[in-house]
């Protein structure tokens, strides 16, 4: 091969070599960071401003069990997809003060600490599905100052006092909350679901009665 031919081959391969190097670097980082896919403790894992749409490219599924506290706190991604929190017992401050606008689905079935989970994520517009269970413990601050929250679909069961009084919530979002409220009519006790005056006005009396007949006081 002549020198000219060699130079031509090198030039042709330059991009491929560059890409291979990039891939190797990506693999090296994420294999280590996600323990070749075995990592389950994601507390603090993607916290702070260094995590952006450009840098957050997990190689393996993100499956958090146990404490997911502060998992994405103050991160700067705008969209979150496919995060498995179904085994997380704490989501304390997990999505606090982020720049997230949309999250496709989160499962808080096992979460007993939801304090400030989404608080101050002021751009958060949509949580496609938020799974609750009879053991999920909701906190009055879970949705604090999520001022743009519009679409929130709760599935499963809400069995502790619940507060989400963000005025931008859609009627469908509010109904998903109403339908998820556990039926305490036979058990007794008082339970409160706080959605605020603006949201109360979006519901008909019949829709409000779905909640009140299940033993929930709406305010």
């Amino acid at each position, binding site marked *: 091969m002549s020198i000219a031919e060699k130079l031509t081959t090198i030039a042709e391969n330059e991009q491929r070599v560059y890409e291979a190097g990039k891939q190797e670097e990506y693999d090296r980082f994420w294999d280590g960071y996600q323990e070749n896919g075995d990592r389950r403790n994601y507390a603090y894992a993607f916290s702070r401003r260094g995590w952006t749409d450009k840098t957050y490219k997990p190689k393996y599924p993100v499956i958090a069990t146990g404490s997911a506290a502060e998992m994405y706190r103050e991160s700067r991604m705008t969209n979150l997809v496919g995060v498995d929190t179904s085994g997380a017992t704490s989501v304390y401050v997990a999505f606090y003060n982020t720049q997230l606008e949309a999250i496709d689905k989160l499962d808080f079935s096992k979460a007993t600490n939801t304090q400030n989970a989404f608080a101050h994520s002021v751009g958060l517009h949509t949580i496609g599905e938020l799974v609750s269970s009879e053991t999920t413990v909701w906190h009055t601050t879970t949705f604090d100052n999520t001022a743009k929250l519009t679409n929130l679909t709760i599935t499963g069961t809400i069995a502790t006092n619940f507060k989400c009084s963000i005025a931008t919530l859609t009627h469908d979002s509010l109904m998903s909350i109403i339908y998820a409220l556990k039926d*305490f009519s036979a058990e007794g006790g008082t339970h409160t679901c706080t959605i605020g005056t603006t949201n*109360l006005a979006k519901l008909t009396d019949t829709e409000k009665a779905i909640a009140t007949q299940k033993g929930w006081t709406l305010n």
Partner: protein
Amino acid sequence: MEKKTIELIKLTASEGMTLTNGETYGKEVYLGCNDSPDNWREIPEEDVPKEEPPEVEEK
């Protein structure tokens, strides 16, 4: 045909007042079937505790 009458008990705070059961606060309250108006009282708006800043540790 089934005919059902649904009772909805609504409490509305007076001007300048807020309703509370000691835990939550609101201008309008629709009582759950196990709740009672006796559990609620009016307090002046200025007595409603301010939202506390989030109990979040700074990092």
